[in-house]
C-alpha cells in the first residue's frame, strides 16, 4: 500500500527519445528528463492561478543549485554562489567547473541548445567563468531581459562533468553518445531504468539538496500511444496521470464525476492558427487573406475541434493594447464581408489550394481543416486537405512551399517579441510558416527586444501586432489549453512552460 502511495504511474503518448536535452534530435519528453534528473542554477517561482491550478511564475526566479546570486552594478554580469553540500547522483560534489562545462556544452553541441542559449544572449564560452569551486560568473554581452530567465530553462541543466568526461572520447569530447542513454545529473530523480520507446523509471534521489525532498519515491512513465487506452487506464485507476489527450477527452473528463480530475492552463505564448503563404498567389494579396479570415467558422472550430478547451483568439471587441499576449484578432465569421473582399481582389471565381496540417496534431487540426474546407467553398475556394506525418512536418515547414497550413506554435519565453521573432520576423525562421516579410514589423520587433521602457515597449508590441493582424498572413484561432488528467488523489500538479510534468511537487494521498 505504501509502495503504491509512493509510486506514480504515468502513461503518455511518447516518451523521451534520449536522456540528454543537448543531444541532436532530442524530443519534447526528453526536456522532462532534463528537468527531473538535472538541476539548474535557478528555477522559477510558483503561483496559484485563478482556477486553482499551480503554475510557474515567470516573473520570479528562485534558487536551485545556486544558493544566491548577485547581478553586478553595471548590470553586465551575474555571480552565483553554489549550494553547499550539493551532490550529483554519484556522490561527487557540484562545482562551478561543472556549471561552466555544462554551459559550454550547451553552446558546443550546436542546434537547439545553442540556439536556446543565444535567445538569452548567452553566446560565447568566454561569458562563463568558474571563479572558484562554488562561485560561477556569467558576463553579459548586452542588456537582455531574457538572459537571467534563460538560465532557468531545461537547456541550462548542470551536468556532472567528471562523470561525463570519463565517458567521453576523442571524437566525442562532450560524451554525447554516452549521455544519450545515461544521466550525469544531480536532480531530484535518478533514472532507474530507461527503455527507449517503452518506459522510463525514475527513483527519488534522497540526497537532493536543491529543494524540498519530493514525496513520490518512484515514477514509472510508460508509453501508451492509444489515447483511448490511456483514458480507459485512467478511468480504471491503473495509471495516475496522463496528458496529451484529445481536447474532447479532457473536456469530458473534467465534467465527469469519477475519480479523475483535469488541470488546465491556457498555454502561454501559444496559438493554433491558419497560416497562408504570402509568396503563393493569390495569398500574396492581403484582401484574399482577409477574406479567408472573415469566412473561417470560428465558433464551429472552437466547439467541434477544440471542444472549448482554449481561449478564443478572434472577435476582439477592443483594440490591441500591447500589454497582453496572446490577444484576439477582430475577425469574426462574416460571409458578406468575405465575399466583398474577394470581389475587390478580383478573385470572385475562386481558386484551388491545399491545406496542410501535422498528422500528430490531427485530433484538433483535422476537424478544423474540414470545417475550413467547407467554409472556404463558399468563396469558391476549393481546398484539398493534406495530412503530413508528424516527423515530416518540420521538413515540410522548412521547405516553405505549403500554401495553407494549420499549425500551432508556442514560445518558451513568454514575450510577444520572442513569439514574433520566430513567427513574423523577416529572418524567416521555420515557424514563419507564411514566409511573411515586412521591414516595419522587423523594426518594431527588434526594438521591443531590447527596450527597457515599459510604455515604449507596449507601443512597439501594439505596433507589430496591429500590422500582423491587419495584414493577417496567419489567422489566430485559439490559444490552446495545457491539460493534464490525473487521479483525484494526485496533488501538487504544476504547470511549466516546457509542458513536461514535474513530479517533484506531486504527492498522492
Amino acid at each position, binding site marked *: 500500500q505504501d509502495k503504491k502511495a509512493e509510486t506514480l504511474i504515468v*502513461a503518455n503518448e511518447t516518451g523521451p527519445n534520449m536522456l540528454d536535452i543537448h543531444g541532436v534530435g532530442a524530443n519534447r519528453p526528453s526536456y522532462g528528463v532534463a528537468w527531473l534528473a538535472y538541476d539548474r542554477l535557478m528555477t522559477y517561482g510558483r503561483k496559484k492561478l485563478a482556477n486553482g491550478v499551480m503554475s510557474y511564475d515567470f516573473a520570479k526566479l528562485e534558487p536551485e543549485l545556486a544558493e544566491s546570486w548577485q547581478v553586478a552594478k553595471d548590470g553586465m554580469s551575474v555571480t552565483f554562489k553554489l549550494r553547499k553540500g550539493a551532490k550529483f547522483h554519484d556522490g561527487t560534489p557540484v562545482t562551478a567547473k561543472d556549471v561552466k562545462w555544462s554551459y559550454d556544452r550547451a553552446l558546443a553541441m550546436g*542546434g537547439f541548445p545553442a540556439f536556446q542559449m543565444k535567445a538569452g544572449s548567452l553566446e560565447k564560452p568566454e561569458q562563463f567563468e568558474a571563479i572558484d569551486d562554488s562561485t560561477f560568473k556569467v558576463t553579459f554581452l548586452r542588456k537582455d531581459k531574457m538572459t537571467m530567465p534563460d538560465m532557468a530553462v531545461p537547456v541550462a541543466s548542470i551536468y556532472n562533468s567528471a562523470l561525463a568526461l570519463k565517458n567521453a572520447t576523442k571524437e566525442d569530447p562532450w560524451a554525447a553518445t554516452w549521455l544519450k542513454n545515461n544521466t550525469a545529473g544531480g536532480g531530484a530523480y535518478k533514472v532507474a531504468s530507461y527503455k*527507449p*520507446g517503452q518506459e522510463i523509471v525514475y527513483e527519488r534521489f534522497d540526497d537532493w539538496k536543491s529543494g524540498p525532498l519530493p514525496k513520490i519515491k518512484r515514477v514509472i512513465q510508460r508509453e501508451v500511444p492509444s489515447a483511448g*487506452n490511456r483514458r*480507459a487506464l485512467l478511468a480504471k485507476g491503473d495509471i495516475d496521470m496522463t496528458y496529451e489527450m484529445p481536447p474532447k477527452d479532457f473536456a469530458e473528463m473534467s465534467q465527469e464525476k469519477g475519480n479523475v480530475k483535469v488541470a488546465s492552463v491556457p498555454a502561454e505564448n501559444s496559438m493554433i492558427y491558419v497560416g497562408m503563404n504570402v509568396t503563393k498567389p493569390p495569398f500574396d494579396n492581403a484582401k484574399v487573406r482577409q477574406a479567408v479570415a472573415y469566412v473561417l467558422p470560428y465558433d464551429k472550430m472552437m466547439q467541434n475541434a477544440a471542444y472549448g478547451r482554449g481561449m478564443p483568439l478572434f472577435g476582439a471587441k477592443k483594440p490591441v493594447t500591447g500589454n497582453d499576449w496572446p490577444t484576439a484578432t477582430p475577425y469574426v465569421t462574416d460571409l458578406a464581408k468575405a465575399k466583398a473582399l474577394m470581389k475587390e481582389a478580383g478573385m470572385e471565381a475562386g481558386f484551388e489550394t491545399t491545406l496542410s496540417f501535422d498528422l500528430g496534431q490531427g485530433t484538433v487540426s483535422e476537424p478544423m481543416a474540414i470545417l475550413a474546407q467547407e467554409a472556404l467553398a463558399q468563396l469558391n475556394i476549393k481546398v484539398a486537405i493534406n495530412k503530413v506525418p508528424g516527423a515530416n512536418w*518540420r521538413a515540410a515547414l*522548412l521547405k516553405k512551399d505549403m500554401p495553407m497550413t494549420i499549425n500551432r506554435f508556442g514560445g518558451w519565453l513568454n514575450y510577444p517579441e520572442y513569439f514574433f521573432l520566430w513567427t513574423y520576423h523577416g529572418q524567416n525562421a521555420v515557424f514563419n510558416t507564411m514566409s511573411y516579410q515586412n521591414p516595419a514589423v522587423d523594426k518594431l520587433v527588434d526594438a521591443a527586444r531590447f527596450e527597457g521602457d515599459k510604455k515604449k515597449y507596449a507601443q512597439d508590441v501594439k505596433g507589430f501586432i496591429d500590422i500582423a493582424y491587419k495584414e493577417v498572413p496567419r489567422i489566430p484561432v485559439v490559444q490552446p489549453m495545457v491539460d493534464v488528467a490525473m487521479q483525484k488523489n494526485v496533488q501538487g500538479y504544476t504547470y511549466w512552460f516546457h509542458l513536461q510534468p514535474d513530479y517533484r511537487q506531486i504527492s498522492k494521498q
Partner: protein
Amino acid sequence: MLATILKRLLGAIPNLIGVIVVTFLLTRALPGDPAAFFAGPAGTAEAVEEIRVKLGLNKSLPEQFLLYVRDLSRGDWGNSLATGQSVLTELTTRLPASLELTLCGLVLAVVIAIPLGILAATRPGSWIDHLCRGIATAGVSLPTFFTGLLLAYIFYFLLGWAPSPLGRLDPYLSSPPTVTGFYLIDSLLVGDLDVFVGAAKQLILPAVTLALFVLAPLARMTRAAMLGVLSADFIRTARAAGLAPTTVLFTYAFRNALLPVMTTLGMVFSFLLGSNVLVEKVFAWPGIGSFAIEALVASDYAPVQGFVLTMALLYVFLNLAIDIAYGLVDPRMRIDQ
C-alpha cells in the same frame, strides 16, 4: 544436411539483396528530411544544409547505397534519428517482445484452428462445419487494430477481466533478467512465478487479437487438407485394414494433412509478424513492429531498413525451418534430396 542448409541460405542472398535495394530506395523516397529533423525546431536552412553534408545526404544515391552496404557489412545498422539509439540494439531488445507475442498468437491460433479444422473436416456440411467457418471468417474480417481496441474496451474497460493494456508487464512488477528476452521463459528461469503470471496475463489480449486474425486461414487450410486426405486412397486402405478410427484420423490422415498446413503456418507466421505492427501499437507493446511504424511515419531511414532486413532474415530462417520440418514429416521432401 548442413551443406544443404548452407546452400539454401546462400540461395536466399539474392532475395536479401533485393530487399535491401528496395528498402533503400523506398526509404530515400520518404518525404521526410533527417537533416531538418536534426536541425531541431530552430534550424535554419543553412544549418540544415550543414547537417545534410555531415550526414552524407548530399551524396548521390548510388554512393549513399554503397556506404550503407559497407556499414551493413561491418555490422553497423545505423542509428535511429528519433530515439538516437543504435538500430541493432533497438531491434535486438525489441525483437523478443514481438516474437513472444507473435508466437503466443500463433500457438493460440494453432491450438484453436487445427482441432476446429479437423472437426469441420470430419463432418463436412454439418452445422459444426458452418459454425467453424463462420467464426474463423468473422475473425479475419475485422481490422486487427479494431479487434484489439474492441477487446481492450470490453475485457479491460467494461468487464475488468483482462489486465491493463500497458505493455509487457504490470508497472509494479519489474522485468526478469534478460536471458532470452522472452518474459515467459526468463521469469521461469529465475523461478519468479509472479512475473510469469503477470507477463502471461499481459499477453492474453494482444495474442487473442492476433490469433483471431489468422484463425481463418489455418482452420480453412486444415479443413481442406483433411478433406483432401480423408478422401485419399490410402485412408481407405487403412480403414479396410481395420485400423482404429483414431489411428486413421491422426496417424494417417492428420500427419499427411499437416504438410499443406505447415506451409500455411509459415505464411501465417510471416503475415503475423507483419501485421502485429498495428496490434503492438494498440497494446503499447514494445516490439519491433510499433518501432517500425514510428520510424516509417517519421521517415527514419535506419530503423526502417533495419526492421525490414530483420524481417527478411526471419523470413528466410522461417522458410528454412519449415523446409526442414517438412522433410521431417514428409520423406519425399527430405531437404538433402
